[in-house]
């Protein structure tokens, strides 16, 4: 494989870690909402941390190798509209995913407290897991990443 293909492999590996991690986290989040006992919610929310690590590593790989590819290729320019939009969306996805993640961490900590204090089903925990703002931030971040994938494939304006 030549240099271009190696860079592309690591760039796409990053995309797989991000999108795969988002699906991984989304599945566990969905099933956590179906559970009543706080200790069961804790188990699923702790597994979500694997997805968070995968997304963090993937986001870094996509940026580093994406920028490297732009610098390496003559026919892709820093000023291309799709490159600029993709970079802005990358920042947006990280920002809203980060805020959503902090809110979910607070929910996990509440579940841990409830699990330690008798493990009884809690209306507050149920409401936190279904909080519309938290869900919109987390799922919205995933949708922004899908929009970046679409930009990478269609490359509008190039």
């Amino acid at each position, binding site marked *: 494989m030549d240099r271009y293909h190696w860079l*592309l492999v690591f760039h796409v590996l990053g995309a797989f870690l991000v999108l795969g991690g988002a699906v991984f986290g989304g599945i566990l989040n969905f099933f956590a909402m179906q559970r009543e006992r706080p200790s069961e919610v804790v188990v699923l929310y702790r597994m979500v941390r694997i997805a968070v690590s995968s997304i963090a590593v993937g986001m870094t790989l996509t940026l580093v190798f994406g920028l490297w590819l732009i610098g390496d290729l003559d026919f892709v320019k820093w000023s291309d509209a799709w490159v600029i939009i993709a970079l802005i969306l990358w920042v947006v996805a990280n920002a809203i995913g980060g805020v959503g993640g902090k809110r979910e961490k607070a929910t996990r900590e509440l579940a841990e407290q409830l699990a330690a204090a008798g493990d009884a089903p809690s209306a507050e925990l149920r409401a936190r897991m279904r909080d519309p703002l938290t869900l919109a931030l987390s799922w919205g971040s995933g949708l922004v990443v899908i929009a970046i994938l679409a930009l990478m494939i269609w490359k509008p304006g190039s």
Partner: protein
Amino acid sequence: MLAIIRPDAWNFPLFLHVLGATALTGATAAVFVGAVSERQWPWLRTVVARTLLLVVFPAWLLMRLAGQWIDSKEDIPGDPGWLGVGFLVGDAGLVLLILAMIFGAVAVRRPQRSWPIRAVAIITGIYFVALIVAMVAMTGKPGA
């Protein structure tokens, strides 16, 4: 940047193919983690079985059908190895996923047996690695 020069007509099937492949990889990883952790939390068997049926299999369908759609548009000369790896992981993957879904259902219906959920963990672990190998082969196109 998935490819630089490509007819516009390939974009939509490629988008679906990559979306399906990434969802399949993430969902397979979730099933593997759930199946491995089941010994400590047996209720995870339901999560594993439902994820296989409701996420992994639909994602495989999206990945495979969109891949076939691209193949019908693209005239690749010869039978390059990277394409063969993609087809092998795609098609053999269906057999593995059907087995995993059967074992997953048995694990839920027969909670006293542990071998079916172990089988799911082994199958999805192997398939996850195969998906990463296929991704590297199809992106890097070694020998092309």
